[in-house]
């Protein structure tokens, strides 16, 4: 099933992507195009293939069949345009937020502290915090993880379950941050089970079932089922 985005310039092309883990097919021929500057929420039950799709776009999982192109390039070639945030924090617990970001900045050849401080302030945290990230609250850790993902100012943000294990207040705060980033021109993908949080914020809801995209809607409520997961 090839489901196209309604309008605009598509930046990500997913073409007949199949991803198998042994005999289990996590993605079964996914084809889709995603537009620039839009907020895409990817929804579906556990095992629907949401995380695998995100990891395939990020280049962390290689498709068994088919291909993914981002701005016409492979995910590895387009890595500077991608910011990836996973369910775990992708941060070193023993180091402070600033120390973590200083190290990750080097991976992108970013010199100096200015960009790191800017990224930490963008997620409303304090760059001068000296305690290790392992001692942060879950909400703070998620925001620091987002700071790591936006550090190199990527055009596309891929976020896997950014609101899980955080309280409603922190989740709403993160949604506000992401909305601001989308308004600033970034393309955002969020894999989540909390669709209601994104209602009125996300531009598009991509519905997955059994390794396939089955629908793309403008609201968190699917007309075919009338339910919110």
């Amino acid at each position, binding site marked *: 099933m090839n489901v196209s985005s309604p309008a605009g310039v598509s930046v990500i092309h997913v073409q007949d992507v199949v991803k198998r883990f042994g005999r289990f097919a996590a993605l079964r021929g996914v084809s889709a195009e995603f537009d620039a500057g839009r907020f895409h929420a990817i929804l579906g039950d556990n095992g629907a293939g949401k995380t695998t799709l995100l990891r395939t776009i*990020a*280049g*962390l*999982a*290689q498709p068994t069949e088919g291909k993914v192109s981002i701005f016409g390039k492979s995910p590895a070639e387009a*890595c*500077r345009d*991608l910011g*990836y945030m*996973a369910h*775990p*924090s*992708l*941060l*070193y*617990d*023993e*180091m402070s937020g600033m*120390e973590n970001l200083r*190290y*990750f900045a*080097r*991976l*992108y*050849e970013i010199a100096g502290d200015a960009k790191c401080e800017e990224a930490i302030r963008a997620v409303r945290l304090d760059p001068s915090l000296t305690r*290790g990230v392992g001692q942060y609250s879950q909400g703070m850790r998620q925001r620091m993880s987002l700071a*790591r993902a936006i550090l190199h100012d990527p055009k596309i943000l891929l976020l896997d379950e950014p609101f899980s294990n955080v309280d409603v207040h922190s989740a709403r705060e993160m949604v506000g941050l992401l909305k601001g980033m989308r308004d600033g021109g970034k393309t955002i993908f969020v894999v989540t089970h909390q669709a209601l949080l994104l209602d009125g914020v996300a531009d598009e809801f991509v519905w997955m079932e059994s390794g396939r995209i089955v629908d793309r809607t403008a609201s968190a409520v699917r007309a075919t089922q009338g339910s919110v997961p």
Partner: protein
Amino acid sequence: MNSLWALTLATLVKDIRLEWRSKDALNAMLFFSLQVVVIFVFSFDPLAEESRHIVGGLVWIAFLFAAVVALNQTWARELRNQVLDAYRVSPAPANALFLAKVLGNFLFVVVLQGLMVPLFVVFYNLRALGPAWQLIPIALLGTWALVVNGTFFAAMSLRTRSREIMLPLLLFPISIPAVIAMVAGTTAVLTGENSAHFYIVLLLTYDVVFTTASLGLFETVLHAE
């Protein structure tokens, strides 16, 4: 190239900082090696002449097993919170990560050797009858042989279910030529019965071959699923 070395240095500094704060690898290696020394001292009480023949083997077995502890730790901290994925999605060269890990492990094992060798000398009443300076290239090249292979195979066994067991299973067989050269070279220097020159050249060749092979293959290992 500059970027490779700059990133290697940044990763090395990060690893030393993490080890300084947690002391996971150093503490485990130190206690393990101390136990080996104490157990062997109480198990048998050799004369100085006998010691010269056996201590090369004891020292390197202690360091080989202790290095395995450090090698497992070095990648374990990259798996916590899936931090390795942050490296994999970045444009950073894979070999910078590998070189930093090898240099870090080399440093940790050399520090351990610096602490343990005096204990071996005292407990076994050792005095080299051959040219003692040759122990330095044997120690440095031997340690490099252990850590370069160990770091590579530890990375390979990262995604296996029982990686603590997989690492020695992969590492020990391939390290046999290097271990033989280390032990024989050390014994040759301690006893003064023959030259250690051959073993030093063998270790150097081993190091060049396995470092080149590891650098050539590491990117594939890092991005393997």
